């Protein structure tokens, strides 16, 4: 049993980087992404006996991760819902490398997307999976993949265009 755990841990150390990359790009928060990866790795350990086709390991593990991302995204961070958050001075978070306006707008738009749409966007545009591959991996209809990708793309464009609108600067008389 301990040997199994050791072997699994070694395997996860290899697969973990890829999982983190996917989870971060969906959740856009490192700590949440790490939580999702933990959830996925533990879920995979639990469900490993149900994996009958080793060739589908990558898709199987990705599906578990995506579900973990859904859970993580739907779970409000502790203390964020029922607490009185006190104002503090915001740390200097400006990143000199992210001065590209397009990327900032994309980021704002992406964060507004539902998690299921984010996942499709990441799998398609980051991993380069085809829509059919996504449908098969996530065990959802191809039409669902297409529609989510369509709406996500449209929403991203709309968000970017909305951000592009000039801001009214009229002052009250």
């Amino acid at each position, binding site marked *: 049993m301990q040997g199994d*755990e050791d072997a*699994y*841990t070694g395997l*996860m*150390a290899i697969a*973990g*980087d890829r*999982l*983190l*990359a996917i989870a*971060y*790009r969906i959740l856009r928060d*490192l*700590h949440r*992404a*790490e*939580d999702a*990866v*933990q*959830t996925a*790795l*533990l879920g995979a*350990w*639990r469900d490993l006996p149900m994996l009958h086709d080793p060739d589908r390991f990558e898709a199987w593990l990705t599906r578990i991760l995506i579900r973990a991302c859904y859970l993580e995204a739907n*779970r*409000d*961070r*502790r*203390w*964020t*819902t*029922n*607490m*009185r*958050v*006190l104002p*503090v001075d915001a*740390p200097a978070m400006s990143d000199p490398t*992210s001065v590209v306006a*397009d*990327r900032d707008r*994309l*980021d704002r738009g*992406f964060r507004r997307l539902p998690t299921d749409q984010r996942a499709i*966007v*990441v799998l398609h*545009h*980051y991993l380069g999976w085809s829509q059919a591959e996504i449908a098969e991996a996530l065990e959802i209809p191809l039409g669902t993949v297409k529609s989510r990708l369509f709406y996500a793309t449209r929403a*991203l*464009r709309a968000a970017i265009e909305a951000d592009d609108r000039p801001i009214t600067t009229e002052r009250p008389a």
Partner: protein
Amino acid sequence: MTPDDRFIAGLEGYLDAGPTELSDRVIWSVRANLSTTRQRRHRLSFRWPWRYPMSSSTKLLVAAGATLALVVAVGSGLFNAFLPGPATGSSPSPSIPSLSPSQSSGPSQSSTIKVPVYPAQSAAPLTAAWDSSGGSPTKLGVPVLAPDGRIWVASSVDNAFRILTPEGKLAEVWGTPGSGDGQFNFSGGPDNGGAVTFGPDGGFWVADTGNFRVQRFDKDRKFLSKWGRFGSADGEFSYPNYISVDTVGTVFVADDKRHDIQGFTSDGQYLRSLKPASFVTATGDGYVLTSILPDGRPGLVEYKPDGSYQGGMDMPDLMPVPQGTAYDAQGNIYAVGLTSTGAASTMVRFDETGQVLNVWAAGGLGVAVSPAGDIAYVLQPDDATIRRYDIPAP
């Protein structure tokens, strides 16, 4: 390049940016959880007997039976305390019924409240924690649950740990006074000194308050290493009386005079500081709980693993001065505290999101909770005892 091409290229460039390497601490945590996954319901980081808090013991006069009356009195502000906006303690809300001791074995029978309140009288004090020979509760450290289920309480009279069975019998006194390796000095200050925190393998770290240092021991209580000296620089201490280790072995030490928390590697290499702070409870996943809000008022505060501020809340009606926190295996948070005059106020069980699950008239200076969440050990401010409360599991 068409607008569509530019959009796709921009999107793919955006997605390409970001971390691509999983932290070792996640793998470490997964490994630690492999054998315990089935017991975890929410959080997946490894949790073990917790850590609690601290106290400041300036005003500890308590009228007998005041706790129950207090809870009734604060009932009108109970729910408002957790809503955004200013506290409105005078707002009308369902009253919290008083329960007689005979009713205390179960939840409130009232159907008008969502938060049952249990009277403190329902618990029998574990008087073995203290010999009552002229001592005071400020001479006791907060209770700590060891992996074997026993309760460790530092005593500044003995300069040793009093180790109790779960039933409250004094099983052992361990430790010798002094400043040598493996010896302790838990005195030297007004507040309770001395604390311990356990790692998953049974090894532990001791906040050796009066010697201004931390000592590390293995599971067989063999001295391994020490670090720290008196001072205000990084890695130094003035009154280290709370200690808590997280899942990756980061040891957090709260200092009651510096009013900060310092984080160290398991071997004592200084990592970072958090301030202001009082007690410290490291959760299984690297988050840290303490009880001083950024503006200096008392409240529950959480910091992220990277040391940044996560959030906080004050509870002026329910628990004016939080004194300690603990976790059960499901990640529920238990907080105990005092009133503004030093009397025991309440013990509150929150879920991970900060939602109040239960309130008991069982405040105190520190708390330890069983993994199942069905037993709480609370250091009382008024009678120099640790009280065991058998409470409904969440």
